[in-house]
């Protein structure tokens, strides 16, 4: 599921937040917000503040999202397209809130079954030079035996999870602590970054050198009064053309998986 099917995207999102969603027809979506969603998305803090003060319950709003602007049945609502403020808001909301998870494999065994702890990290590497580029990794680490699995989210994709321990299941305690588990993942990524082609770093640095030398040449006749300006320009260039790599965990968590998961991956 991706943003290419916006209908589906919006309705999954709102349903996951316990909102009633009516997909009238393809292209038009009616959502009855919950109080929590209204507060998160509708930007009316004073209303809710007032309701709270006066001891009233308040009435969450309804939202109509049109994903197909060519829909013949024109009705009031907002156009939700890629880049629309509403979608952006939801994306920000997701990125901001769905950062940590602790989930158990949803299985219904009849005998006592152990669940294995995994550290799952979804990591974005941001390369910043003259331009920016990003890479996304999903890495899982078995906290019992240290086995590492890439494309973890893709491997988990078809499974289902719940937030409580299923019947007849018992989670095993990790042998590897979370912090040291993360350090292992970090080391793998460090190695990965080191092995890369770093032409872009060189290009950025060359450009920086070039611009700095131009700057110097420009202020060469240098009277004192321009010194401050020179320093300012110099800092500007250095900041702008400082090659940087930022490794950022976008979300992750502790996942308890059935043993068969690991077997299936092999």
């Amino acid at each position, binding site marked *: 599921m991706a943003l290419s099917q916006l209908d589906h995207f919006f309705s999954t999102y709102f349903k996951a937040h316990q909102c009633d969603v009516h997909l009238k027809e393809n292209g038009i979506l009616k959502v009855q917000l919950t109080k929590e969603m209204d507060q998160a998305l509708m930007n009316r803090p004073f209303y809710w503040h007032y309701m709270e003060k006066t001891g009233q319950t308040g009435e969450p709003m309804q939202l109509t999202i049109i994903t197909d602007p060519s829909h013949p049945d024109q009705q009031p609502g907002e156009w939700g397209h890629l880049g629309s403020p509403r979608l952006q808001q939801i994306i920000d909301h997701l990125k901001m809130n769905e950062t940590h*998870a602790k989930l158990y494999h949803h299985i219904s065994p009849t005998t006592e079954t152990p669940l294995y702890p995994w550290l799952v990290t979804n990591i974005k590497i941001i390369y910043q030079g003259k331009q920016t580029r990003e890479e996304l990794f999903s890495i899982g680490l078995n906290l019992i035996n240290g086995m590492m699995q890439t494309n973890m989210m893709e491997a988990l994709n078809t499974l289902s999870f719940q*937030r409580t321990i299923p019947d007849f299941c018992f989670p095993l305690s990790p042998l590897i602590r979370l912090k040291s588990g993360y350090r292992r993942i970090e080391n793998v990524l460090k190695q990965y970054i080191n092995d890369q082609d770093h032409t872009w770093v060189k290009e950025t640095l060359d450009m920086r050198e070039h611009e700095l030398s*131009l700057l110097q040449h420009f202020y060469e006749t240098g009277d004192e009064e321009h010194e401050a300006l020179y320093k300012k320009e110099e800092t500007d260039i250095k900041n702008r053309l400082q090659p940087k790599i930022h490794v950022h965990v976008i979300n992750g968590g502790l996942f308890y998986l059935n043993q068969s998961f690991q077997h299936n991956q092999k």
Partner: protein
Amino acid sequence: MDELEIVFDQSFIHQLEEIALNDMPTSSWELFKMAYDVQKFTLIDTFDGLLAVDYLPNLTCLPHQLNTAKRVIEHMNGRAILADEVGLGKTIEAGLILKEYMIRGLVKKVLILVPASLVNQWVDELVKKFYIPATAFRKGYTWEHIDIIVASLDTAKRAPHCDDIHNIDYDLVIIDEAHKLKNHQTKNYQFVKEIKKKYCLLLTATPVQNRLSEIFNLVSILKPGHLGNYEAFMDKYAKGTPTTEDNHYLKELIKKVMIRHTRKETNIKPSKRHIKTIWVNFSEDEQTFYNRIEHELGNKVPLLKLTFLREICSSREACFMSLKKLSDKVKHQKDELHDFMNGLQELPQHAKAKKVIEIIKDIGDEKVIIFTEYRATQYFLQWYLEQHGISSVPYRGGFSRSKKDWMRQLFQHNRQVLIATEAGGEGINLQFCHHMINYDLPWNPMRLEQRIGRIHRYGQEQDVYIYNLALKRTVEEHIMNILYKKLDLFERVIGELDDILSRLLITDLESEIQTIFHKSRSTGEAKVKLNHLTTIIQENVNLHESEG
């Protein structure tokens, strides 16, 4: 690589430990997965290309605009002069670049400086076309707290704003009508130079590439040193005679920081211009009076002769104001001046004004803009139109921003005619109007182009109609015939004329023409000289065209 900074996120794992330990609330599987999918989908997986396009489904960009945005981001590192000809959509280009940087997460804090009359228009376009939450600066706002702010250069450079702005690290600074920064000794220039900025876009429609000091100063804002230092640069290119090789080198350097598209290159002909010259004859009384000014008054105050003549061609009122000013100043000849002023009052209604009424009646119900050079004429016309049951609003440079907006709105919704003076012409977008009357022609063709650019610009889908009024047997006839008609200025894109003029080292065509009139003893002589001037220009135009 020592110079490469690598930062690993540490906060995540600490938080996870805490959450696991204390059984704090966590995400459901659906939402967790969605957040990952969203990250995957919005990933910037390449250094190149424009991502913004996918995010702006209801904006159709022209190829040259996309090309500009791409070049600025990929090759110019976000520091460029955008110098497309008037009406090719520089705002769109700047918006695209801003959007792209925002999507890529490289830009957050943005300062946009534009002429006061354009502040609201910019905000409007950014919000509606690009979904960029831009805010217009208002009294009481603080510069630090608004991420994307649009303000006028004049406001921003004043204390205390100027210090506030200089204390902020901006990611992107956009300056519209940047030719205002061409002089490095002005306050504007110093102010802009001291703003801390990562990326910077300078927008200008004036082709600065042939004016060396101007281009030098603009480039120095973007990339100090790119063209060397001032003294060395001026010695080599402005004072000395640079070799063709030098010139070629300079052009290459400029190309690295400036993008200029012409209408010709882009093949944009959104709609046609229909240009009509309308000849008007003075009534007999008016003609007599005109001749008297030329011969009697002209001999006494030769320096002002031309001014009076141009004014009487516009309105009695315009001429009256100048006569009055003169008579207040001088000590002798007062009687004679008063005699002229009285004579003015006895003249019939101005022949051109009558013609304007005819034209507007012919146009019917559609909106019309009238441009005049004189404030007095503006007042007069407003009154005169009202006498004929035609509603109008005035518009001029001195109006405050809100008044300008208000006048524009009034014109769009309630009035038929907008009467503007020259200074009101800059920047305002009046595409909903398709008729323009040039009540008197400016002597600088660039200004005419700017006038026309108000209604005939990128995005105009209907044909536009331009009516140029000129009085027979007056100085207007010469200007119309020799300057405009001979050079074919109405049809030609004037940007290229400007290129040629600056190559001929004519910085101000208007003052050039004035000098010709002043220094000539007779109208005949002036005509001959004017003819020479236009012939030289024409030859260069032909040369320019044969060069391609």
